């Protein structure tokens, strides 16, 4: 995080969904459309992001209705499960942090916590959780549950996060003892029931079925506005994603988010279209928009690599990180890799990347002790 000791060094995240952020991106990708949905493509994009120097890769999820009759429906591609894409990337990458988006409203918190802990294992401690809360009636219908209206989403998300936090703590770090002398594989005193009760009426018993994740707790990222001030101050999220209508307005939003969640890292969201292949960014965008207009709630940068470098350096003076949503991965990522990230590194704006370091390390978060360890083993200093 931006503290006096680390003046304005930050991290960059890259969203890797589809062929890019623009709905018509698939028309400019360098592969046949169906190849979007295979492992080769997942591997290629995450490796390109890692070698470009991005610190974090995020993987969007959620329902997309393929080829629907809505405007833009003809440009909506299929989407593989985000957590699996991140897991697939785990063993083939070495330093980039892998953060899938996972819904909290129509999913089982017990499954999610196990899946995310497993992602931490297969990535060597480089996993995070981008919390989503679906507002789609179709998602409720798919699993036959009643629709949760907008005012309930924050609570669903907070409950799911709380279950995750408790389950990840439910095995103390040294619960697996493999004690040949007593024949005990685990120390049962170091496993804990989580006994979570939600307002919505479900309960989760625990403990987890997987030992504590490598990071102890995976960092949780949430979009600004999803969680209440109380939930944030109780530590529900480790990072908040901030959007603004224009790049100029980002600074104000960042300041506001920082005030609402002083302990969290602040990550600014930015759509990006760059001059590329002898074509102006505006020209590229117009061409893509002619197929399907790109609607997003994020600030959008359209221009040259040099201008983007300046903008990112200035945003990173107040934000801890920026997440980029390039219009077309195959095109914009190349420009980012060749021009923007090297320039930011030269300026000393980017945090160093160390192979083997965890997501918590990147966020400057210590590895926490299990909450249950504190209860079951009070130390003398607690008196």
């Amino acid at each position: 995080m931006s503290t006096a000791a680390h003046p304005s060094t930050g991290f960059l995240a890259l969203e890797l969904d589809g062929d890019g952020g623009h709905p018509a991106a698939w028309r400019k990708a360098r592969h046949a459309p169906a190849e979007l949905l295979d492992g080769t493509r997942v591997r290629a994009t995450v490796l390109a992001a890692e070698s470009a120097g991005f610190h974090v890769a995020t993987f969007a999820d959620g329902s997309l209705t393929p080829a629907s009759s809505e405007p833009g429906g003809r440009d909506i591609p299929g989407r593989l499960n985000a957590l699996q894409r991140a897991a697939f990337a785990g063993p083939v990458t070495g330093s980039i942090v892998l953060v899938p988006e996972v819904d909290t409203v129509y999913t089982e918190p017990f499954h999610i916590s196990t899946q995310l802990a497993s992602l931490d294992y297969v990535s060597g401690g480089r996993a995070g959780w981008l919390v989503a809360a679906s507002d789609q009636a179709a998602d409720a219908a798919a699993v036959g549950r009643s629709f949760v209206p907008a005012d309930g989403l924050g609570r669903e998300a907070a409950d799911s996060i709380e279950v995750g936090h408790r389950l990840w703590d439910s095995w103390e770090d040294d619960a697996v003892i493999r004690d040949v002398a007593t024949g005990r594989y685990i120390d049962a005193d170091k496993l804990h029931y989580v006994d979570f009760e939600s307002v919505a009426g479900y309960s989760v018993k625990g403990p987890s079925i997987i030992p504590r994740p490598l990071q102890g707790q995976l960092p949780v990222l949430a979009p600004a506005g999803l969680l209440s001030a109380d939930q944030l101050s109780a530590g529900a999220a480790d990072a908040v994603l901030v959007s603004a209508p224009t790049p100029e307005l980002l600074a104000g939003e960042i300041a506001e988010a920082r005030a609402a969640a002083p302990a969290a890292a602040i990550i600014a969201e930015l759509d990006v279209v760059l001059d590329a292949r002898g074509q102006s960014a505006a020209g590229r965008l117009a061409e893509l928009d002619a197929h399907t207009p790109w609607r997003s709630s994020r600030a959008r940068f359209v221009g040259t690599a040099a201008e983007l470098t300046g903008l990112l350096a200035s945003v990173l003076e107040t934000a801890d990180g920026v997440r980029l949503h390039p219009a077309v991965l195959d095109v914009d990522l190349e420009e980012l890799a060749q021009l923007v990230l090297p320039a930011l590194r030269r300026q000393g704006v980017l945090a160093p990347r160390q192979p083997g370091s965890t997501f918590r390390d990147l966020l400057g978060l210590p590895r926490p002790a299990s909450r249950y360890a504190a209860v079951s083993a009070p130390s003398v200093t607690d008196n």
Partner: protein
Amino acid sequence: MTDTHIGNGFVPSGKLQLGIFFQGVNSGTVWKSPESGSQTDFESFRRIAQTAERGLFAAFFLGEGLRLREHLGRPHALDVVGRPDAQTMLAALASVTTRIGLVATQNTTYNDPADLAHRLSSLDLLSGGRAAWNVVTTDNAWTGANFRRGGYLDHADRYVHAEAFVTTAKRIWDSWEDGAIAETPAAPAWAAPGSARPVHHQGKHYTVDYVPRLPRSAQYRPVLFQAGDSPEGRDFAARQADVIFSAHPRLGDALDFRRDIVERTVRAGRGANDVKIMPASEFILAATPQEALEKKDWVRSLQIGPEQAIAYLEQFWGRELQGFDPDGPLPDIDPVVEETSETRGSGFHGAKAKQLADQWRAEAKDKGLSIRQFVSARTSRGDSSFTGSYTEVADRLAEYARTGAVDGFNISPWLIPTGLDDIVNHLVPALQERGVYPTEYAGATLRENLGLATPVRQDADTVRLQLTVGEQLL
């Protein structure tokens, strides 16, 4: 001489396949030996999956359990425990393997059909057509305590529910037209409009109203395995499954099971050879028969130590028996009836506990067995274990291939992560010499490697819809 005739038009393939069953939580994996590695580190999974692939194994399986086993009201301390989520681990393994099938054991009671079908499709595409689902039906409220819906299913309904679940999943996988996705970026749409048919299901336990998000994989749809042995389970498999992960590895028993399954399969209107059978098994191998027997004793002593023997009885007695000598007679005190109930997730029937204890005491006394000897005999993996020299075991396995008793074996290695090394280095070549094991992968997908036919869409409704969509595409 064993009667090897199977009947009903069944034709033995003469070949065997191997799978590896990485169980996770279990009492069979030796953890007390210096060679035993981590049960959760990715490197253990990578090592064993890559070794299996070197040995041309058809499949890598992960088991599942959705609540930690308990012993006398607290987590059971003696056995290997703690395992990663199956599909997450398999997605990671998909990136470091190229041919081996990736089988996730996933429960039908504590998952939602649309969500599970979507994730299995996703794994199938990500792995290039190598995914499979081992369908299991655990249904107790004790496990349900970890889920939103809780324990809402009667035991008697487990397969009614599972079948509705599986048929819904198949409809989800069948819902996209072949060739729905654009071939070039200049096409009018990424996927032809209407290429995904909505799937509706209204049932006793859940409703599904879903527009599937993914097209078919290289193997059309995930392969279906079934594990469960009741008559209902067998009929369910005969109607729905591609492969049965069975519990009958002894030759005579395996032949009986094959006959039973062939009969049920034919009765369900499928071909006699349509459902493959791969029993769970354990291999203890060495260069000579004598060494293998010694190895077996060593493995057993690590699997059932004095603490395991006492704990085993405690599960049935429902009380602590720590004061009893593992090398002495069975406890003379009676079981606590109320606590030996099914809700602890172990499936022991409370009311029968006293009866069982009396019976065991009589039997142990009769045979002059100590606690340890009695438990060792009771939990003997004799049923599923193949012990012997490489050539001896290869000869025995060739007989299974010849008779068609099974299509292969699912091996639970007793050592992680090196437990397949001797099998791949010595048993596989011996089987290849006998002409009963593949010398290369038959294809790129699991379906091809198991020799399974491409599924045919069966329900009239979808065929009609296909025609409607065909019209739209023109």
